[in-house]
């Protein structure tokens, strides 16, 4: 590596360097800050990284001997991660104080998780993917168990770390097999050697299955979804909001990066993905019907959404990939929005986790109830909210590729999913209230809810522009 190449690499990874350095400084400085100004400091770091990322767009910059790249695809996902992290930070301000977890480590770990996700989005080598994956995963393991006094949080963290460790181990084993068979871990070189090799080589198939297992675990798709409900329920609600959008989108970023490659897209692997997509969506939608805890319900809803987004991966091509990217962006807005409402319900002795707690919510809290209605309608995919267009473009991509049967299945399963979202709306609007409501609507939470609502409505009003943005990002990547 020459010093010039290193400088180029440093420039390409400047946003990551900003986040990691900022987190390290905050880790030490935070110990002397006495718990004040942590959110503002973290937001400043995220803003600086956003500025760096935006300044770097428009040009494809490879770095670190082909292990890392900044292209439109990576930049799109990084902006999504900044958004998810910034909104989580805003929601955390009051919630962390109520749960007594407002410590410097909480914010530093969020920033490290952000850095891990950014590396995943930019990684073009199985090893750099692994580094990003681990950085993100280790941070989220600790964040899951951050409420140390609560058994549920501890249990969730333990489950998550054991299952996550196993899945990462399987992923690494797959990577080692791939290296043994092809002599490379770079995605492009891999696809090239895949074209030459016999496609039905059982050892290679095994290796691919192992790698896919590790990634499917991260996006929470069947059959590696079992951790999702328990972890989402036990983790602090702000972290659940973060995990349901950030790490999930990062997992998709890696899956899509692999599928961006035309050689992979031309193989028969889409059949496997299609089966996973159908089963994931069916399981998420049907099991969510019987949930009483809103965090568990949203966990199954997130499984169902992962299944729907996988349909876009099945469709493949520029349109399919762009539709998944748009889906993830919209999902970030609407899911952080609904979790924001749940977070604000946690105040005093109210946990706001049982769906029954929301009975008659609309009587006294018109504004917040209306926002929840908006987010729930969007999650259900009812026009004119953004959630409708998220699903719509995936379906369009599916039909254009000739997967009409899959599109029909997807629509039918979303109809099932719509039921449990509407059920919450019914509880809020049609039932008599059981008691008083006192949501912790602080200014940061209001801002976060406002941004989420603006995104949900804004993308619903101008979906074509945002789809064009996603498509341009994919084009710029290749």
């Amino acid at each position, binding site marked *: 590596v*020459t010093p010039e190449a*290193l400088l180029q690499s440093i420039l390409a990874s400047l946003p990551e360097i900003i986040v*990691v350095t900022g987190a*390290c400084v905050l*880790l*030490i400085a935070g110990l002397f800050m006495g718990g004040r100004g942590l959110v503002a400091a973290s937001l400043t770091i995220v803003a600086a990284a956003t500025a760096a990322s935006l300044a770097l767009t428009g040009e494809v910059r490879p770095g670190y001997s082909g292990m890392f790249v900044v292209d439109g695809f990576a930049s799109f996902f990084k902006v999504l991660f900044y958004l998810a992290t910034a909104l989580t930070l805003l929601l955390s301000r009051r919630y962390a104080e109520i749960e007594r977890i407002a410590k410097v480590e909480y914010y530093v770990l969020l920033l490290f998780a952000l850095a891990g996700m950014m590396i995943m989005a930019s990684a073009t080598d199985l090893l750099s993917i692994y580094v990003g994956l681990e950085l993100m995963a280790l941070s989220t393991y600790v964040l899951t168990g951050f409420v140390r006094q609560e058994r549920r949080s501890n249990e969730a963290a333990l489950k998550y770390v054991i299952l996550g460790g196993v899945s990462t181990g399987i992923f690494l084993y797959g990577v080692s097999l791939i290296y*043994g068979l*092809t002599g490379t871990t770079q995605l492009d070189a891999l696809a090239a050697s895949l074209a030459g090799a016999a496609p039905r080589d059982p050892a290679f198939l095994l290796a691919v299955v192992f790698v896919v297992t590790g990634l499917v675990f991260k996006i929470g798709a069947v059959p590696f979804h079992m951790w999702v409900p328990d972890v989402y329920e036990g983790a602090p609600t702000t972290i659940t909001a973060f995990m349901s959008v950030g790490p999930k989108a990062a997992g998709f970023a890696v899956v899509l990066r692999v599928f961006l490659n035309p050689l992979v897209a031309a193989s028969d692997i889409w059949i496997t993905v299609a089966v996973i997509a159908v089963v994931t969506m069916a399981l998420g939608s049907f099991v969510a019907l019987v949930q009483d805890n809103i965090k568990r319900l949203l966990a199954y809803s997130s499984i169902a959404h992962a299944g729907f987004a996988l349909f876009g991966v099945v469709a493949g091509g520029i349109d399919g990939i762009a539709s998944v990217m748009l889906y993830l962006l919209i999902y970030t807005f609407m899911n952080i929005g609904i979790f924001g409402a749940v977070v604000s319900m946690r105040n005093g002795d109210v946990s706001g986790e049982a769906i029954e707690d929301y009975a008659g919510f609309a009587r006294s809290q018109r504004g917040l109830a209306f926002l929840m209605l908006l987010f729930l309608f969007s999650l259900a995919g009812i026009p004119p909210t953004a959630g409708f267009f998220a699903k719509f473009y995936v379906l369009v991509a599916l039909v254009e590729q000739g997967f009409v049967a899959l599109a029909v299945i997807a629509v039918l399963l979303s109809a099932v999913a719509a039921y449990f979202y509407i059920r919450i709306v019914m509880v809020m609007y049609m039932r008599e209230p059981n008691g008083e409501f006192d949501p912790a609507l602080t200014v940061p939470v209001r801002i976060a809810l406002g941004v989420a609502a603006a995104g949900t409505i804004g993308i619903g009003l101008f979906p074509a522009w945002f789809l064009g943005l996603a498509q341009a990002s994919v084009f710029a990547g290749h």
Partner: protein
Amino acid sequence: MTGMEFLPALVMVTGVVLVALATLYVSSLLRPSNPYPAKNMPYECGVDPAGEAAGGRFRVQFFLVAILFVVFDVEAMFLFPWAVVLKEIGLVGYVEMFVFIVLLLVGFAYAWLKGALEWES
């Protein structure tokens, strides 16, 4: 097929497992089996087990020290190959190692400031 190159490794793994199992099986056939409570106790030089570790509970500080040890252990292991190839990788490799060590030092400073190195709390 390239997989054949790894055949010796497979033979080695199988051999290790077989030797271990065979040793255990053969010795179980040959030795007399006569367990009694005193024999099943943990061996502590012939005395009854005593002290805090005997109950299976360790002070949490041992765990912290172990974690900190792993950090520096890995760093040292990483430094050896780096030192061997330092001339070939030049200035860039030199700088990169310092970046790594600074990141480690941040972690160490954090542990120190948090009081992880204080035995009595």
